[in-house]
C-alpha cells in the first residue's frame, strides 16, 4: 500500500465521525497549549530577567563574605559574616595586586527607614561610592551632585536620594539642601538621582545613598563591609580580575586551601548562569505539570480509538479479505490516532501562540516591562512532537487490537 493511500484511508476513517473526533482532541489541544504556553512565557520571563541583569554591565564582579550560598539561610549568613575589612579593600585597590580592576568599592546595606518632618519612607539604603554606582548603573544626579571622596574620608552625613524617595518625602517641595533622618541620624541631601527605574535587581528610584564610611560608623557601628563591588577595565578581563581578587584575599586572610575561603567572588556571568538554570528548571517543571493533562488527553484518544475499532470490526474483516496485511491495518488506525493528536497539537500550538501574544501585550501595558512575545520553532516542534508522541503511545494498543482481529470473525461481527 502506498503512503498517500494510507494517509487518505486514515483521513476518510476520521471524516466519518468528525464531531466525535473533534471532541476527543480537546484534551490534546488543551494539554499541548498549556505546555507550549508555559515554555513560551518561561522563555520570555527568562529573557527579561537576563536582560535586566545584564543592565548592570558585564565588567562587574562582586565579592561577598562567607561561602557561596546554596540556599536562603546561607544568603542570610553572608550578611552577618564580617570577613571583609577595610584593609582588604586597600589591598584590592593596589594595582600590583589586581591590575585589571578599574574600581573597588565597598557596599554597606542599611536596613531601616528615612524621615523628613512627618513623612516616613522605607527605601533601599546603601553605603556606597556614589560615583561608581552612578557609572555602573548609568545614572546621574538630576539635581545637586554626588558626595565626594572627601565626604567619604570625613564620614560626612550627606546623602543622594532617588527620584521616588524625593517624591515620597518632599512631594513637590525642594529636597536639595534639606535634612532628612536616616535611622534617626541627620543627613543633608546633596543630590537627587535621575528617574531611571529598575536596573537589574535594583530599583534606582528607591535608593538612598550615603558614604560607606558613614554607614559603617554612624548607622551600623560595624567595621566590616557587606560586599565589595569591583569593575574590571574591560569585560574580557573579568575572569582574570576574579582570580587576582581571590589570590589577594587568600593572602590577606592567610588561606592556603581554596575550599576554606571565607569569601566568594561572583561575576555577572555566574549570576546569569544561575538565573538561567533556575528559571529553566522552573519552566520545565511547570511544563511537566502541564504534560499530565496530555496523559489524560491520550487516554481519551485511546478510548475513542478502541470504540472506533470495535464499531468498524466488519470493515477490518473486509479489508483483510481483500488483501490488507496486519501491518497495514495497524498503520491505518495508528495513523488515525496520530492525525487526531497532531491536529490537536497544531490547534493547541496556535492557541498558545495567541495567548502568548496577548500576554505580551498585557504585560507590556499593565506592568510596563520590556516583555517580548517569544515563539520559537522549538516550541512549535515540541508542541507537535509531544502530540505525535501521545498519538503513537495511546494509539498503539487500539491499532494492534485492530490488526490482530481474525478476518472471518471480524466479517461475521454484528
Amino acid at each position, binding site marked *: *500500500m*502506498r503512503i498517500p*493511500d494510507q494517509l487518505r*484511508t486514515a483521513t*476518510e476513517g476520521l471524516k*466519518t465521525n468528525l464531531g466525535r473526533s473533534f471532541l476527543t482532541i480537546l484534551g490534546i489541544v488543551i494539554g499541548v497549549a498549556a505546555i507550549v504556553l508555559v515554555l513560551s512565557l518561561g522563555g520570555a520571563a527568562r529573557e527579561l530577567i537576563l536582560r535586566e541583569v545584564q543592565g548592570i554591565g558585564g565588567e562587574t564582579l562582586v565579592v561577598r563574605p562567607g561561602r557561596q550560598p546554596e540556599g536562603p539561610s546561607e544568603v542570610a549568613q553572608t550578611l552577618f559574616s564580617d570577613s571583609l575589612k577595610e584593609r582588604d579593600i586597600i589591598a584590592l585597590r593596589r594595582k600590583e595586586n589586581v591590575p585589571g580592576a578599574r574600581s573597588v568599592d565597598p557596599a554597606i546595606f542599611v536596613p531601616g527607614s528615612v524621615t523628613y518632618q512627618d513623612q516616613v519612607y522605607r527605601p533601599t539604603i546603601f553605603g556606597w561610592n556614589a560615583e561608581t554606582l552612578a557609572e555602573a548603573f548609568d545614572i546621574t544626579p538630576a539635581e545637586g551632585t554626588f558626595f565626594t571622596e572627601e565626604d567619604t574620608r570625613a564620614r560626612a552625613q550627606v546623602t543622594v536620594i532617588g527620584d521616588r524617595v524625593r517624591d515620597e518625602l518632599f512631594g513637590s517641595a525642594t529636597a536639595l539642601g534639606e535634612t532628612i533622618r536616616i535611622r534617626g541620624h541627620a543627613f543633608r541631601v546633596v543630590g537627587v538621582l535621575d528617574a531611571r527605574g529598575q536596573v537589574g535587581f535594583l530599583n534606582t528610584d528607591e535608593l538612598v545613598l550615603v558614604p560607606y564610611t558613614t554607614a559603617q560608623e554612624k548607622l551600623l557601628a560595624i567595621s566590616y563591609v557587606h560586599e565589595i563591588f569591583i569593575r574590571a577595565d574591560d569585560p574580557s578581563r573579568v575572569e582574570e580580575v576574579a582570580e587576582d581578587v581571590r589570590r589577594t584575599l587568600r593572602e590577606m586572610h592567610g588561606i592556603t586551601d581554596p575550599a576554606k575561603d571565607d569569601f566568594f567572588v561572583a561575576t555577572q556571568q555566574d549570576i546569569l548562569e544561575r538565573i538561567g538554570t533556575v528559571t529553566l528548571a522552573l519552566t520545565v517543571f511547570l511544563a511537566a505539570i502541564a504534560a499530565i493533562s496530555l496523559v489524560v488527553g491520550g487516554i481519551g484518544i485511546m478510548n475513542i480509538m478502541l470504540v472506533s475499532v470495535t464499531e468498524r470490526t*466488519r*470493515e477490518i*474483516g*473486509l*479489508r*483483510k*479479505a*481483500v*488483501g*490488507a*496485511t*496486519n*501491518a*497495514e491495518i495497524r498503520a491505518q488506525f495508528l495513523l488515525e490516532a496520530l492525525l487526531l493528536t497532531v491536529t490537536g497539537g497544531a490547534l493547541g500550538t496556535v492557541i498558545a501562540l495567541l495567548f502568548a501574544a496577548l500576554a505580551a501585550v498585557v504585560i507590556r501595558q499593565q506592568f510596563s516591562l520590556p516583555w517580548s512575545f517569544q515563539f520559537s520553532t522549538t516550541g512549535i516542534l515540541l508542541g507537535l512532537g509531544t502530540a505525535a508522541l501521545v498519538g503513537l503511545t495511546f494509539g498503539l494498543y487500539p491499532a494492534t487490537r485492530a490488526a490482530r482481529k481474525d*478476518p*472471518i470473525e471480524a*466479517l461475521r461481527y454484528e
Partner: protein
Amino acid sequence: MALLDIRNVSRTYGEEDTVTPALRDVFFTVEEGEFLAIMGPSGSGKSTLLHILGFLDRPTSGSYLFTGKSIGDLDDEALARLRNEQVGFVFQMFHLLPRVAVLNNVVLPLVYAGVPAIERERRARESLTVVGMTHRLNHVPSQLSGGERQRVAIARAIVNAPRLILADEPTGNLDAASGQMVLETLERLHAQGHTIILVTHETTLANHAERIVRLHDGRIVSDERRERRNVHAHFSK
C-alpha cells in the same frame, strides 16, 4: 496441475471438551477455469471450506496446495498477499464499506496491491462495466438496492483480475430477479476464464455449475460433474 488441491483437510473449532469438527478429512481438487457449486445443509462446513480455499482461514490439519505450492508454511502476510492477488470474494452480506462511494469501494483491493490511483480507477470502471453498474459510480451503498450492492461487490471481487472467485451464497439476500442477474454475471466471468466456486443452498443456482460438490457434516458426500448448459442463450434476449 490443479489450481487448488486440498488433501486430508480437517478444521475443528473450540478446544478439548467443546471441539466442533467443521470439516473432516476432505480431499478435493479444482482445475483452472472450473465453475463449481458447493451444496449442503446448514452447518455442513461450506463456508468453512470456502474460507480455507480463499486463504482467510487455515486448516487444523491436512495440506492445501495452491498452484502446486503448499500454503501451510506461509505467514499471515503472504496469505494476505495471496488473497489480494489471487482471490475475489463475494459475500452474502455484500460487505461494502458504508459511506464510501461505489468507485472507491471497488478500487479497494487495488489500493492494497499498490496500484497507482489513475490505473486503479480505470480498472474499477472496467469491472463496473462488466457488472453493469457504471451509472452509480458516486453513490454510497445505502443508496443502492440489494442486487446493485451485490453487483458492486462482484466488481470489487474481479477488479484485481483474480484466478479464483469465491462466492458464499451471493444471492442469499436477494430476490429472484436480482439473484438471476448476479448469477448471470458470474457465468459471464466464468466464460471469460475465471475459476468460480459458488456456495449455495438453491438447486436452481447450482444447476448452472459444471460440477456440484455436496457436503454433509463436514465430509464430501458427492462430487458430480454435469453437462454444461449454455446460460448465455438461456438468459440473453
